[in-house]
């Protein structure tokens, strides 16, 4: 199929893009990598009347400043795999990025597009939640900072308003003695996941001092697991047995039940993936210390 008619506008500056988005309101959308929007338009699941092309705006740097790593909205997925600021600080993030689609998709898709598209099992929304990310959204009226944990309202739904666009994501730099891992299960390599789990740990003297856990496939959006995170404090890196705490967490889940997996299967899968991610994060922490 082919898209319905629309008007194309190439923005040369952020100000111009925001003015155009404000003018078009609900009828307009930014286009970044086009790797999710154009399939939706070709299938006529999306029919925007106006597209504002933001590819000429720059917004494609990864910088460290004041304890945070700031990732521009137009950074393409493949960039992280060769970026020391990400490789050195966010091992779980790197695991997750490797699982996004295929090389051509990773070369063209952007973080702003992935977050705004909000596929329920996309990797970057989960990873931004896991790493306590903040999403910076701009509109003609100014900027808002939105914690990733409060950005997603449901499958393909975010708190972004008409006229607003993502300009960057900021991830706080973790302390030196930290570790992490991400694991997912998909029907085929490169497909969207059925479920996924990311874990990060801070540790001292062989024990976990702080943990973060985020998973997808467990609900309509990715989510953090605060009770489980608390239960993991004090865990020995050498014996990362947290089966009881993980079971207590998965019991509370109410995952989707659909053609690709039943709710029970997803609940069990999230538990398995969490155990695996936790074990890898612990063994990485031991290797490094």
């Amino acid at each position: 199929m082919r898209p319905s008619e629309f008007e194309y506008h190439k923005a040369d500056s952020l100000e111009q893009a925001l003015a155009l988005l404000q003018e078009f309101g609900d009828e307009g959308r930014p286009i970044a990598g086009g790797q999710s929007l154009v399939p939706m338009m070709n299938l006529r699941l999306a029919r925007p009347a106006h597209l504002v092309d933001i590819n000429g705006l720059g917004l494609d740097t990864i910088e460290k400043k004041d304890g945070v790593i700031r990732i521009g909205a137009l950074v393409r997925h493949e960039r992280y795999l060769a970026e020391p600021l990400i490789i050195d600080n966010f091992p779980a993030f790197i695991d997750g990025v490797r699982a996004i689609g295929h090389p051509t998709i990773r070369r063209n898709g952007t973080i702003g597009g992935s977050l705004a598209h909000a596929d329920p099992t996309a990797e970057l929304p989960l990873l931004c939640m896991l790493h306590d990310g903040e999403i910076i959204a701009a509109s003609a009226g100014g900027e808002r900072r939105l914690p990733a944990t409060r950005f997603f309202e449901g499958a393909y739904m975010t708190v972004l308003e008409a006229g607003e666009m993502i300009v960057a994501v900021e991830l706080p730099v973790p302390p030196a003695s930290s570790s992490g891992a991400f694991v997912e299960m998909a029907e085929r390599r490169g497909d969207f996941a059925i479920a996924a789990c990311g874990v990060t740990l801070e540790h001292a003297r062989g024990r976990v001092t702080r943990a973060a856990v985020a998973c997808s496939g467990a609900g309509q959006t990715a989510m953090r697991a605060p009770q489980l995170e608390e239960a993991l404090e004090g865990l020995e890196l050498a014996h990362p047995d947290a089966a009881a705490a993980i079971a207590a967490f998965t019991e509370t889940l109410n995952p989707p039940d659909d053609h690709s997996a039943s709710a029970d299967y997803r609940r069990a899968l999230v538990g398995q993936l969490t155990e695996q991610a936790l074990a890898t994060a612990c063994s990485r922490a031991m290797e490094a210390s």
Partner: protein
Amino acid sequence: MIEITLEVNGETRRLSVESRRLLADVLRQEFNLSGVHIGCAHGACGCCTVHLDGKPRLSCLTFAAQCDGKSVRTVESVGGVGADHPLQKAFRSEHGLQCGYCTPGFIMTLIPFVEEMTAERRMPDEEEIREAMSGNICRCTGYQGIVEAVRKVIGENLEEGAQA
């Protein structure tokens, strides 16, 4: 309608396109490049892969209007009518194709990978080769012949480099 200038396989042309025209359709219909195959038109099969400013890009997920001033390479720029680029020859000798529908997409996806491995002077393992072509679907060959073709051409390149 939007006025754009496109450089395609060395030929520069100005043309006027509707916003919604896909690059894949413009290449096929305005430039008569029937080697740009459309399998799914939603990013899932890789058949329509071309190089946009030197990098692989799915032409079914690209509007021609976005390509003003850019340079496009299609499979027609590779090996000519004889299809005698070393990777194309290896596809023939290793049974990397049968009906051929997916072949232009595989060739355009894999040429940069072969060049990268040659530049790094290393033979990728099977898993790396399969990852490099994971965005392309082939319904005929079962992929093994394509993996062999990639290995063969990288092997030849490494040998040549070793002699030089």
